[in-house]
C-alpha cells in the first residue's frame, strides 16, 4: 500500500483575528496520482485548507495550529513556503495578480529566474511549456492584452514549469467562459495523466469539474470535512443536494423523472450513466409534462440602436449593435471572455461613450444624461466588487446611497437591515468589509444597489464565487422584487445554470454583434452558436439526445419550467 502524499491528522487552524476555529479537526489522506476536488459552501474553509498545503498558513496568515499535517514527507509547521514550493504548485484564484511579469514569457520564466537558471536554459524550458499550453503566439503580449482564459493559462504555465508533483487550484474556473473552463479542466486532466501529478481542485462549479474525471470528492462544511468519497457514491446518495450544494443538472432531471440514483451506474458522466428503467421513465416524463407559454405584452424600456464602440480604432469591440429590451424582462447576456459584455454595460450606464448610435430609455436619450443621472434609473453592479466598495464597514456601505439621497436615519436603518437579511449579511453587519471573502463582498455590492430600488438592474457576474445557498437566496430575492416592481434585469454571466434557470431571454454577444437572441433553452441546444460563443452544451441536452427524446430544446425548457414552479 502506498503512503499518502498529503496527510492531515486531527488538524485544526484558527486565524488570529477569528474567535472560532476555521478548520476543525481535519482528517484527510491524499495519495500520489489522485485527482481530488474540494467543494463546500462559501466560507466553509476550502481556501484555508489550500493555504495549509502550500505553507501560506502559517507563514503569511498567522494563527493557531494543532494536530499534524504532512506534505510529501515534510511537516507543515517546520517547512517554509519556499520548501513547499518545490512540492506544491499553486494557481491562485485571481489570475491577474498571479501574473507578475510584464509579458507572458517573463511570467512563465519567473520561477526559473529566481532559481538563477541561465538564459539559454530558460529559453529551452519556456519554449517547451509555452508549446504545451499553446501560448506560443502570445509570448510577447502584456497581461492587459489577454482575456481571462488566456491569463489563466499563463498562470498555469508559470506554475507547471516547476514540475512539482502536487498541483493546487483555487477556483480555476471562477472567471472563465464555459468553453475556456472546460478546456482548462481538460488540460489539467491531460497533464495529470502525463506527468503523474496529484491534483487538488477547489471549485463551486462542481458539474464542470466532474466532467474532467475526479477520483475523489471532499465536501467541507463549517471547517469540517462532511463527506470524503468517490464521486460515484456521493452522487448516488444525493449527498450534494442534502448538503446544500449544486448537483449536476442531469441528475436533477433524472430525479424529476423518477429515476433512482442509487441504482445508477457511471453516475458521474452524463455520457455513460445507465439504469435499466431510465429510457422509459425519461420519455414518460417528457410526454407527460406540458410547456405552458405565457406571452405578456410589454412596452419597450431600453432601446439600443446601431451602437458602436472601440478602445482602439483598429479593433472595434461593439459594431452597429441594436437591441430592444422590454419592461419587466430578465435577460441574460452571454459570450466568450473579452466579447465585450462588460463594455456594453459600461456604454449603457455612461461609463464609456459610444462612437456612434443611440441609446434610449423610455424614449429619452440616455446619451445626453450624466453617469449620475443614468444611475437614478439603472443600477449597475460591477464585475469586481472591490471597485464599488468605498466605505470600511458593511452597514455604512449599504446605507451610503440612501444617505446621499437624504433619507431619514431610521428609515435607512429599516431598509438596510431588511436587505442585509436577504443577502445573508445581517449577522456580519458591523464587520469591516475587509474581513469578507470574495463571494461575501459581491453580496455587499448587490445589497448596496438593491436597497436603492432602481427601475432596471445590470448585474455583471452576480454569482461568481457564490455557493448554491446564497446564490439561490439572492436570485430568489431578485426574482421577487422583479415580480413586485416589474423590474427589468440584465444578467451578464458565464454560468449556464443561472442563465437557464432564471432568465427568459438570452442575448449572445460575439464579435461586437448579437449572434443570437432567443430563449435560453434554444441557445444552449444550438451547436453552432455554442461553438462560436464559447458556451457549452448543457448536460440535459446530452441526456435528451442519448435517449432520443423528440425535442431536446423542449425537454430542457420543460425541466427548467418544473424547477421554477417548484421554487415559487
Amino acid at each position, binding site marked *: 500500500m502506498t503512503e499518502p502524499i498529503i496527510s492531515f491528522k486531527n488538524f485544526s487552524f484558527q486565524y488570529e*483575528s477569528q*474567535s472560532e476555529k476555521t478548520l476543525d479537526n481535519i482528517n484527510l489522506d491524499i495519495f500520489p496520482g489522485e485527482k481530488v476536488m474540494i467543494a463546500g459552501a462559501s466560507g466553509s474553509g476550502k481556501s484555508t485548507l489550500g493555504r495549509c498545503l502550500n505553507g501560506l498558513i502559517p*507563514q503569511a496568515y498567522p494563527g493557531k495550529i494543532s494536530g499534524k499535517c504532512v506534505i510529501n514527507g515534510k511537516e507543515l509547521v517546520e517547512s517554509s513556503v*519556499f520548501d513547499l514550493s518545490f512540492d506544491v504548485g499553486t494557481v491562485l484564484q485571481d489570475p491577474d495578480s498571479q501574473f507578475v511579469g510584464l509579458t507572458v514569457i517573463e511570467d512563465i520564466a519567473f520561477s526559473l529566474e529566481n532559481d538563477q537558471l541561465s538564459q539559454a536554459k530558460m529559453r529551452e524550458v519556456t519554449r517547451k511549456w509555452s508549446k504545451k499550453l499553446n501560448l506560443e503566439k502570445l509570448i510577447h503580449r502584456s497581461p492587459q492584452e489577454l482575456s481571462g482564459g488566456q491569463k489563466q493559462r499563463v498562470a498555469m504555465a508559470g506554475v507547471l514549469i516547476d514540475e512539482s508533483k502536487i498541483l493546487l487550484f483555487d477556483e480555476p474556473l471562477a472567471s472563465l467562459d464555459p468553453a475556456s473552463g472546460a478546456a482548462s479542466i481538460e488540460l489539467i486532466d491531460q497533464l495529470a495523466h502525463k506527468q503523474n501529478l496529484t491534483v487538488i481542485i477547489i471549485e463551486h462549479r462542481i458539474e464542470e469539474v466532474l466532467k474532467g474525471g475526479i477520483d475523489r470528492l471532499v465536501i467541507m462544511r463549517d471547517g469540517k470535512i462532511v463527506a470524503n468519497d468517490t464521486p460515484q457514491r456521493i452522487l448516488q446518495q444525493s449527498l450534494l443536494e442534502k448538503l446544500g450544494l449544486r448537483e449536476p443538472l442531469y441528475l436533477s432531471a433524472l430525479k424529476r423523472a423518477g429515476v433512482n440514483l442509487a441504482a445508477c451506474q457511471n453516475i458521474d458522466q452524463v455520457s455513460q450513466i445507465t439504469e435499466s428503467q431510465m429510457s422509459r421513465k425519461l420519455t414518460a416524463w417528457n410526454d407527460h409534462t406540458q410547456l405552458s407559454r405565457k406571452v405578456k405584452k410589454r412596452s419597450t424600456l431600453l432601446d439600443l440602436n446601431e451602437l458602436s464602440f472601440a478602445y482602439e480604432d483598429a479593433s472595434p469591440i461593439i459594431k452597429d449593435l441594436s437591441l430592444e429590451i422590454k419592461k419587466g424582462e430578465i435577460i441574460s447576456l452571454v459570450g466568450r471572455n473579452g466579447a465585450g459584455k462588460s463594455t456594453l454595460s459600461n456604454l449603457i450606464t455612461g461609463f464609456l461613450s459610444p462612437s456612434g448610435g443611440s441609446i434610449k430609455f423610455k424614449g429619452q436619450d440616455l446619451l445626453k444624461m450624466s453617469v449620475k443621472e443614468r444611475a437614478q434609473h439603472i443600477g449597475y453592479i460591477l464585475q469586481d466588487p472591490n471597485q464599488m466598495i468605498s466605505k470600511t*464597514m458593511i452597514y455604512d456601505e449599504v446605507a451610503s446611497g440612501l444617505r446621499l439621497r437624504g433619507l431619514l436615519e431610521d428609515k435607512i436603518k429599516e431598509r438596510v437591515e431588511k436587505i442585509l437579511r436577504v443577502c445573508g449579511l445581517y*449577522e456580519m*453587519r*458591523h*464587520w*469591516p468589509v475587509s474581513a469578507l471573502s470574495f463571494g461575501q463582498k459581491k453580496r455587499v455590492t448587490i445589497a448596496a444597489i438593491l436597497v436603492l430600488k432602481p427601475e432596471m438592474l445590470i448585474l455583471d457576474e452576480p454569482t461568481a464565487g457564490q455557493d448554491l445557498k446564497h446564490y439561490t437566496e439572492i436570485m430568489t430575492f431578485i426574482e421577487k422584487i422583479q415580480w413586485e416592481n416589474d423590474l427589468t434585469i440584465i444578467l451578464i454571466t458565464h454560468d449556464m445554470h443561472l442563465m437557464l434557470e432564471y432568465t427568459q431571454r438570452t442575448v449572445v454577444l460575439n464579435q461586437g454583434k448579437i449572434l443570437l437572441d432567443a430563449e435560453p433553452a434554444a441557445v444552449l441546444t444550438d451547436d453552432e452558436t455554442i461553438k462560436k460563443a464559447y458556451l457549452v452544451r448543457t448536460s440535459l441536452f446530452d441526456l435528451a439526445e442519448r435517449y432520443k427524446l423528440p425535442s431536446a430544446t423542449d425537454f430542457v425548457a420543460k425541466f427548467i419550467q418544473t424547477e421554477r414552479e417548484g421554487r415559487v
Partner: protein
Amino acid sequence: MKNKENNSIKTVVATGIGAAIIFVLMKFVAIPTGIPNTQINVAEGFLPLLGAIYGPIAAGLAIFIGHTLNDFVTYGSPWWTWVITDGLVGLAFGLAKRKLDIQSGVLSRRKLIWFNIYQIIVNFVAWVLLAPTGDIIIYHEPAKKVFLQGITTWIINSLSVAVIGTILLVLYAKTRTKRGSLKKER
C-alpha cells in the same frame, strides 16, 4: 523568524505597487486649492499610509520611483533634487510606523496630532531647507526663487498630508480587526 522572508517580499511588492499608485495620482488626479496653478498633492497624502503599513524603505523608494517615472514622462527628465527630497520625506513618514502602530486598529487623537506635527516638521526640513539648498548648490538657481517655491510646496504638502493623509490613516485603522474580535451577531 520565517515571517521575515515574507515581509521582505511584501516590501518589494508594496514599493512597486505603491509607486504605480503614486504615479497615477501625480499624473491624473488634481484637486485645485483655489489658488491658481496650485493643486492638492494627493500622492503626498497617500504616502503616510504606505509608510505606516509597510515602513520607511517601501515608502521612500515608492515615492522615489513614482516621482522619477512621472518626471520622466511629463518633463522629459527628472528634477533630481526634488525627487531625492521626496524620497527622504517618504522615508521619514515610514519611520513613524512603530509609533503609529496602525495594525492594532486604534489610532488615538493624540497619535494623530503628534503625527501631524511630525509631518509638518518633516515637510519643513525637506521643502524649506533641503530641496532649495540642493537647487542652489547643484543647479545654482537664485535663492529667493527656490525658497519661495520651497515654502509654497511646504504649505501645500503639509496641507495635503493633514487632510488626505489623516483621513486615510483613520479609515485604514478602522478596517483592522483586533485579535479574536470577529463574531457573528444575531
